């Protein structure tokens, strides 16, 4: 039941905002709906904690340890982003970059996007998963092109085409999957697409078909994860879309896409064994991490910078999943969580920073601690967190990943070392002068509402030094699930 509510609320919100999106209270409504979703999601979580995994709606929807915490995370970040976007988009409107019509589009699409992601997470049906991913793409395409500037249009176009093509590959993969499963599970009632059934019979599925299917699924969903060399849409979309959108893209969409990839991996591994998919994921991960790091080094635009850092981190997570085993999977899940929290927080601050400076070019942003301490320190701490500085949680996961890699595949550690080092130098050498140093512009009269930023950072910090038992239990269960 909760599941349906969780899915229904954002859909309702989309409908409402499609009607009233242009009104003054639209932003509040948006936040309100997101809050409601969050509450529903948390009640779902509580229920799962109490009664364990559940399967509803003719087995179409299900919750297991793997997706439940992602649902909670998605709902939470969705809510905080809505909170952040309320004042932010208002200022944008003052600057005349947006008008009420576009705001309506923005709000309804935002809710639709949340719906699509939650659907993708909660569905038990691989076909539905595909549909949801496509829907997520479509809704965000319009969000990315919200400003209607040449740049944003171009970014949105590239995003649409690349992800569309990718998604098409994923569909072919799904078809192959169905083709393989239908032999063992038969056609009646599309059980052959239901994850719960597939996982039960994964041992008997035809290896060759599954191998082929995995390639298409990996390329398809991997494009949305932003794995190099399929990543090219990502920096453009992050840089040109409105900041809240960049935040949810980095913080949530990538996670969901990765979730899809991992679901497929689990299935495929059941039939063709760990070696092949593991190696593929590790290769993609390392490549993305290293490439992302070197791209970071050459950035001038603050949002592009952190877009590339998302690529790098997604690479690290994928690599960890590729490593496999309880520890690495645990670390990867943890990293998914802390990355989305930290990265969205960074995008919040980056958005305010570029708003106050009037440019996204990092040379134009100087001495933020002087202008507005919350922004400055938010950016500094956020960057340090994302760079894996303890006691922030990112360090915890990187600690586990690196030690595991050193143990299992020592040859990968040099690449990781390079990636981390270069990324550190790249990001920090840009952030330091932005935060510190002299600035000619006067201090802000009132500091912007950065509560979400510090809430996120506080959570990341806590995860670094103390992890609630329940959360740890989820992670462990999910890690076991992924195997």
């Amino acid at each position: 039941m909760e599941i349906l509510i969780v899915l229904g609320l954002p859909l309702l919100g989309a409908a409402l905002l499609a009607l009233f999106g242009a009104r003054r209270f639209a932003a509040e409504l948006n936040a309100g709906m997101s809050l409601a979703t969050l509450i529903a999601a948390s009640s779902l979580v509580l229920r799962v904690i109490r009664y364990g995994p559940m399967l509803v709606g003719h087995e179409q929807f299900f919750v297991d340890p793997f997706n439940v915490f992602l649902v909670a995370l998605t709902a939470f970040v969705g809510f905080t982003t809505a909170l952040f976007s309320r004042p932010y988009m208002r200022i944008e409107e003052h600057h005349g970059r947006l008008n009420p019509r576009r705001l309506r589009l923005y709000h309804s699409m935002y809710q639709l996007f949340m719906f699509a992601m939650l659907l993708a997470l909660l569905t038990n049906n691989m076909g539905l998963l595909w549909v949801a991913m496509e829907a997520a793409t479509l809704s965000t395409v319009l969000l990315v092109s919200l400003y209607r500037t040449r740049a944003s249009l171009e970014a949105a176009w590239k995003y649409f085409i690349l992800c569309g093509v990718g998604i098409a590959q994923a569909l072919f993969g799904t078809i192959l999957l169905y083709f393989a499963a239908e032999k063992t599970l038969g056609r009646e009632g599309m059980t052959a697409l239901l994850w719960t059934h597939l996982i039960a019979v994964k041992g008997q599925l035809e290896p060759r078909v599954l191998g082929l299917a995995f390639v298409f699924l990996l390329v398809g969903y991997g494009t949305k994860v932003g794995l190099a060399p399929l990543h090219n849409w990502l920096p453009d979309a992050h840089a040109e879309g409105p900041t809240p959108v960049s935040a949810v893209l980095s913080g949530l969409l990538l996670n969901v896409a990765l979730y899809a990839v991992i679901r497929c991996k689990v299935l495929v591994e059941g039939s063709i064994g760990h070696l092949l998919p593991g190696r593929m994921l590790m290769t993609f991960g390392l490549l993305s991490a290293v490439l992302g790091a070197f791209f970071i080094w050459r950035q001038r635009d603050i949002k592009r910078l952190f877009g590339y850092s998302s690529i790098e981190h997604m690479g690290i997570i994928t690599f960890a999943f590729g490593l496999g085993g309880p520890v690495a999977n645990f670390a990867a899940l943890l990293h998914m969580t802390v990355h989305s929290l930290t990265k969205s927080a960074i995008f919040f601050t980056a958005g305010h920073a570029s708003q106050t400076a009037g440019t996204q070019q990092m040379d134009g942003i100087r001495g933020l601690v002087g202008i507005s301490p919350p922004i400055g320190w938010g950016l500094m701490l956020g960057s340090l967190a994302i760079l894996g500085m303890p006691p922030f949680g990112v360090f915890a996961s990187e600690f586990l990943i690196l030690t595991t890699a050193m143990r299992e595949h020592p040859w990968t550690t040099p690449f990781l070392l390079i990636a981390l080092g270069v990324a550190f130098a790249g990001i920090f050498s840009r952030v330091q002068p932005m935060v510190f140093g002299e600035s000619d512009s006067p201090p802000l009269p009132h500091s912007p509402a950065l509560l979400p930023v510090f809430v996120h950072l506080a959570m990341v910090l806590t995860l670094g030094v103390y992890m609630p038992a329940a959360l740890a239990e989820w992670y462990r269960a999910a890690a076991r699930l992924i195997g």
Partner: protein
Amino acid sequence: MLLSANHWISGLAETLAVNDLHSLLLLVAAWMVLGFAGFLRPHSIRFVARFLFPAGAVLCLGVALLAGLFLASGHAPQLVVLPLGLPDLPFHIRLDVLSAFFLLLLGVAGAGISTFAAGYFRSGEGTAPALLGLEYHLFLASMAMVILADDAYLFMVAWETMALSSYFLVTSHHRIPEIRRAGFLYLIMAHVGAVCILLSFGVLQGGSWQFTFDAMRSAHFTPFWATTAFLLALLGFGAKAGLVPMHVWLPEAHPAAPSPVSAMMSGLMLKTAIYGILRISFDLLSIRFWQWGVLLLVLGLFSALFGAIFAAVQTDMKRLLAYSSIENVGLIFAGIGLAILFETSNMHLFAALALTAALVHSLNHALFKSLLFLTTGSVLHATKQRSLGKLGGLIRRMPWVASLALIGTLSIAGLPPLNGFVSEWLLLQSFLFTPQLPHAFLNMLIPLGAAVLALTVALAAYVMVKFYGVIFLGQPREASLVNAHDANWLERLGLIWLAVGCVLIGAFPQLALMASAPVTGKLLGETVRPGSTVWWIAPIAQEQASYSGLILLAGILSVVAITFVCVRLLAHGRIRRTDTWDCGYPWQTSRMQDTAEGFGQPIRHMFGTFFRMERDMPSASDTAPRYRIYIEDRLWRAIYLPISRGVQKLADGIGFLQGGRLSIYLLYSFLTLLGLLVFVL
């Protein structure tokens, strides 16, 4: 006398040290509390500096006391597990003799520094007071936690927190670009080093997925893995300790920081790296190889010589001290190397001697280097000058600082009867015994090592004469120096504390030896005897070598006194004050004194190959001649510039991947698809 005191202390310890790990943790927590307490009145320097810092100093004393008692009591290690950290890996905390020794060091030196800092920080300098206090006390606490940590995760967390807090302290004057650059360099070196240490732990956990140090102790390794772990650890800790060639950040960051912070980084933070290398190579790793010892020895001696030479040519007083830190760390590493060398060839007594030398030198360095950095702080406040070329004659303006700095100078120059000499004496002693090693060619090598050591020690004296003479003696080189003021009483108190420490260890080396004896006993199962009687130390054997700081000190003082009295009795004490004899050239000005550059000139002349020099000599006809010299570290160009250039090149090179053409992007994914298909085919 001392021995009985020792008994008495241990008796007291019995009663007190039962649960002193808990009390230690409380003290550390109290530091954090102090740090955050600053935000009660964030902008009041009086509250933060004059009240919180002294409190921190008291806590330091507490830490030192507890650690000392633990050492004296000879208790078994104490363990605590906190309900924090990763789910499967709660924070393990352990107090054993090794950590106790370094805590002692931390507490003793930290107390002095904090006291000084209380008087040092003025309002309106760099960061807001509250923030400063927070970073400062976080720094202290994290160092203590590094020393106390008993699992890899807590260790790394504390380690990086230490790096982070110190980074913020370094950049507290962040409006100056050079300081930002220094901070950046420091942080990135620290981070890369930390990743190396982390990887080393990754090897050490030996597939047992338990990152506690106990698990690592019990794990067994093939020589290859053990060496890998050791080398990674060496990279990481060497980068923190400023071992050549990972030293480049050190001469940038230490001068950039406010002086108490420089003192802490140089005096205390470097020691955590020493602690780390000891912990890993002697405690966690069950096997060692003599090649490691050779490696450490060579690196250490090279760093020592390198540091001394560069210190001799510096013109910035804090840079000079920073380089001298490199030198001292090098000496310590050499000692550790010798210890490994002896230990692997089953000469545990000599190993203990070498290790003792290293430990005692760490302690001494913590004392006198902090002392000197703090004095530079006072000089900086009094004169606003950091360049040696603009100082001089301060002994008349600031007698307190000058006299205390003299003690520091003498002890860092390794002169009897002060503490610097003690550790260098021990180190030389341990060098003397190396020829009994089984490896023949090592025996050939070691005398050269000893020679380098001797040269370094002598150079250190040269450097320090330059340091002290140019700053405090002679004529003021700038007119502004006449209104330099002496340090305030809090600063004096801190300086005095450290100076007393120097003299005390100089006079009673037994104290230091007794402190380090349990450590060597634990790590090597062998300790050097502090000496048959309390009067002098004879680590190996009475008739082989012995030294008594106390009698030497007393002797010098008494003879001086006697002579003085006699002279007074014999000769009349008439004194005629006259001008300085100008050699018949009355137009001398204070600018004509020998400058810092001039003082370094012989070294430049002799060791010219070590550095890149750019000089512009004024022509003979030049009416307003300016002589400028710019000295650079060759290693910077040899190693670091190429790396950064390479990264830059690569980054430029891969730009085309994001060429902006959609068709190309599609091509990428197409090719990826085909490639993977071929792969599964």
